[in-house]
């Protein structure tokens, strides 16, 4: 063996046609040393497709692959025609469809792309990437027909078709080959105008024997060309993903580049030529004649045989296979020695730095310098919890300091989620342009406020249901990606429009708290305009799906249809309830809208109210549109009387906690931010729930007995704490899908459910232990409850400990729970 960990192939470049209708003079297929295309069939045959699909299926089964990516490539793949490509797609789907997720893309010069092709790609969910080098001047420098005619207009037509509402979900991105003679910023701007979801800026393939064209004598012309684009990209707020830069940034923070051109990650890609030959990466064609060849083919050899080929093996060995110069270089983890082909030199073969070495060093250094905060991630700034704090948590408690450490991690997670929603939303082709414009406007407000009033951002992002919202958006956006077909996407995209629009509501809440100016459009959900953490403006049922909000130093103006109202900002911040004031500029229209949408009622501002008791203040959240994420349904907005009942119950429950369960009070005071009233259940049982994504929140129907409320809070907050610990650490093997007996339930539970229940019942046991020792309660009943919960908890701890699925940290956590339950002692 060669000492490497074998990486299965999961990306296949399938050459469906070996000729091209353009004659680009920088093409590595036809214009480089390797001329093997001349001896190959013009188009792939059905036998080759069928045999290739069979080989991939065999490989998927052997290595249990969940997903493979197949890129239909050429020459120019569209020369295979609609019928030819349909035959390929049918065969791939037939053989692989039920085995794994099949992600098919086509990479084309675009000149033949028409509706018929797009309909075929829609039918099979094929993403389309197009090559274009920039504006007309840049593109015409190389990308022309054989007779010298420009391909620019035909390519632009193709991109316009792809960017249309009907087909934009197929639009994968644009690829441009760099020519340093072009103006870099002009190239960037012209490509951006084509609204691609992704951009790739490719270094022209070159070797030390055939070095790249350089227009000056600095030796870093390619870095000097890319750096102005990076600077502009950063100044623009990273409006599109650019793979070259993304790859470098990913490696700077210790991740994989996601491309064979950079980084040390093993390459897991194979090319299948039109005759069924397996080849290494196409780019090797620039090294020497026959360089990509493996001598293997789909008819005779499995893909595992290909993995044994020395050229493939060399690209899976990471740093060990790089030249000594590269191995000692400080940026090697980012550049990975550059693209394999670019290292070639006669005599020393690939045992050299890249011919772009100086460019890569300069570019990587520049990016690291421009993103000083990002670079700190690579220095190991990870969230930690002190051993003392984790031990406190494991015995069921956790003081202010322990909870603070969990809260800090939640802050990071929420910023991650926020940025991910924004980026996924912008990158999703089916999301309407107006929705994306709304995302951009909201992000601008948030990013500015993050500089000017970070406390406001932190407060709003700290709202428990912000994470629920973000997770819902990300789930839907990822589902949208998987759907792949227009019809399926339409409904999903409509729902998403409102969810993504909520980012503007978040930004507006930040602006109000941070005293910033903002003009944003927010969704009207359930007849209300929602401002998370602050409250909602009830506008009543109506047809308007969106409201325009303008925030300034004193007012929040709300325009809905033809009507406008305003809210005085200090009153919003003070948590007052009040009727919105029709805005004087348009009194008649406003009245008309009021009559139309509200039956003459004036919109009313309903604030989030706070429950207070000595040493604790908790929001009673009955307005947030994402609060209904617990096991039982949320209650509608509470009346003033109902709120007063909650306040009375809360004070008594908190007194009970402080008096009889003081060890649990500090964690609640530090971490419980929100109570979400639930609708009472018909049976009259007390119901309460925590939600994994709603850190800081507990949902409950108000029990008649405040002592019961104290128990509910203690119990549910255990789930909140443990959920936050599980966000940080693996306490058990996530792959353990077995179900376990939980003594308090009839149905078996997954391991996490058992762990959650056990941890929560530590508090329940403690609660009853104390109650059983008090004279003011039915002691026999309390003692019985205590005996039951202590025994259940102790049994469940042993089930966990004997599961063989706990990690070392999980085992330690379980032993500390065991110590805690043992300390509860026998029945009083």
């Amino acid at each position, binding site marked *: 063996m060669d000492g490497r960990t074998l990486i299965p192939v999961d990306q296949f470049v399938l050459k469906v046609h070996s000729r091209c209708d353009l004659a680009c003079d920088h093409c590595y297929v036809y214009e480089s040393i390797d001329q093997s295309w001349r001896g190959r069939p013009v188009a792939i045959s059905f036998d080759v497709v069928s045999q290739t699909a069979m080989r991939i299926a065999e490989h998927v089964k052997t290595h249990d692959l969940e997903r493979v990516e197949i890129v239909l490539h050429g020459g120019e793949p569209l020369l295979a025609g609609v019928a030819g490509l349909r035959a390929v797609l049918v065969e791939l789907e037939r053989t692989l469809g039920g085995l794994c997720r099949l992600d098919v893309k086509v990479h084309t010069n675009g000149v033949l792309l028409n509706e018929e092709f797009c309909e075929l790609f829609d039918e099979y969910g094929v993403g389309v990437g197009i090559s274009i080098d920039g504006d007309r001047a840049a593109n015409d420098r190389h990308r022309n027909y054989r007779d010298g005619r420009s391909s620019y207009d035909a390519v632009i037509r193709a991109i316009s078709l792809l960017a249309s509402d009907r087909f934009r979900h197929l639009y994968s991105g644009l690829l441009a080959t760099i020519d340093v003679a072009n103006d870099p910023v002009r190239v960037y701007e012209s490509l951006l105008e084509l609204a691609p979801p992704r951009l790739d800026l490719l270094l022209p393939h070159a070797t030390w024997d055939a070095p790249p064209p350089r227009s000056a004598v600095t030796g870093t012309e390619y870095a000097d060309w890319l750096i102005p684009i990076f600077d502009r990209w950063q100044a623009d707020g990273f409006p599109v993903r650019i793979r070259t830069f993304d790859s470098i940034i990913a490696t700077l923070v210790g991740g994989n580049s996601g491309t064979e051109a950079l980084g040390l990650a093993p390459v897991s890609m194979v090319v299948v030529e039109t005759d069924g030959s397996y080849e290494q990466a196409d780019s090797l064609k620039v090294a020497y004649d026959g360089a990509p060849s493996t001598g293997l083919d789909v008819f005779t050899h499995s893909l595992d045989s290909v993995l044994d080929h020395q050229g493939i093996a060399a690209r899976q060995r990471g740093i060990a296979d790089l030249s000594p110069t590269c191995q000692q270089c400080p940026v090697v983890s980012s550049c990975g020695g550059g693209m394999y082909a670019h290292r070639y030199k006669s005599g020393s073969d690939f045992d050299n730095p890249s011919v772009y070495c100086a460019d890569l060093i300069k570019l990587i250094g520049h990016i690291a310098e421009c993103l000083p905060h990002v670079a700190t991630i690579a220095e190991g700034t*990870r969230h930690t919890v002190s051993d003392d704090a984790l031990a406190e948590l494991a015995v069921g408690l956790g003081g202010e300091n322990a909870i603070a450490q969990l809260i800090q991690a939640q802050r990071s997670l929420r910023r991650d989620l926020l940025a991910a929603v924004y980026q996924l939303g912008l990158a999703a082709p089916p999301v309407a342009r107006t929705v994306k414009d709304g995302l951009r406007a909201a992000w601008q407000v948030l990013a500015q406020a993050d500089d000017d009033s970070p406390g406001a951002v932190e407060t709003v992002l700290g709202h428990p249901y912000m994470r629920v919202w973000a*997770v819902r958006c990300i789930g839907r956006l990822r589902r949208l990606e998987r759907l792949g077909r227009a019809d399926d996407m339409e409904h999903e995209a409509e729902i998403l429009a409102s969810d993504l629009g909520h980012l503007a509501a978040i930004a507006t809440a930040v602006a109000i708290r941070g005293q910033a100016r903002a003009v944003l459009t927010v969704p009207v959900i359930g007849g209300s305009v929602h401002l998370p953490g602050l409250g909602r403006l009830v506008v009543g049922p109506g047809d308007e799906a969106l409201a325009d909000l303008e925030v300034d130093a004193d007012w929040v103006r709300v325009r809905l249809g033809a009507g406008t109202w305003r809210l005085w900002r200090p009153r919003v911040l003070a948590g007052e309830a009040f009727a919105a004031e029709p805005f004087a500029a348009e009194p008649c229209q406003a009245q008309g809208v009021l009559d139309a949408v509200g039956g003459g009622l004036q919109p009313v501002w309903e604030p989030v109210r706070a429950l207070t008791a000595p040493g604790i203040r908790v929001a009673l959240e009955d307005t947030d549109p994402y609060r209904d994420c617990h096991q039982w349904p949320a209650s509608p907005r509470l009346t003033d009387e109902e709120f007063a009942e909650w306040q009375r119950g809360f004070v008594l429950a908190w007194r009970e906690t402080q008096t009889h369960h003081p060890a649990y009070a500090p964690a609640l005071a530090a971490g419980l931010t929100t109570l979400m009233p639930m609708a009472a259940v018909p049976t009259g049982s007390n*119901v309460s729930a925590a939600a994994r994504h709603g850190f800081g929140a507990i949902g409950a129907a108000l029990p008649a007995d405040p002592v019961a409320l104290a128990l509910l809070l203690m119990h549910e907050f255990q789930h909140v704490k443990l959920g936050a610990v599980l966000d940080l650490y693996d306490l058990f093997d996530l792959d353990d899908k077995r179900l376990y007996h939980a003594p308090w339930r009839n149905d078996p539970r997954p391991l996490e459910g058992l762990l959650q229940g056990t941890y929560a019942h530590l508090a329940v046991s403690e609660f009853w232990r104390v109650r059983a020792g008090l004279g003011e309660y039915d002691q026999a009943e309390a003692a019985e409850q205590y005996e039951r919960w202590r025994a259940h908890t102790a049994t469940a701890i042993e089930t966990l400990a004997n599961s063989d699925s706990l990690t070392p940290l999980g085992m330690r956590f379980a032993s500390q729970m065991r110590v805690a339950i043992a300390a509860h002692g026998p029945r009083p």
Partner: protein
Amino acid sequence: MVPTEELPPTHASAMADVRNIPLAEMLALGLDVLGRTIDRVLADPSANSVPVAAFQSSI
């Protein structure tokens, strides 16, 4: 010499601390990087079906 106080041992998690990265700079991270933290949270099947814990009191 000033004696150095020994810090209590800590448990490092896989979650990057991004609290001090300005939101504007967060976007440079791209989804591949952000996804490392997010996938961990979203991958948990019980976390995906949002309600994971519920209690019916018999009190």
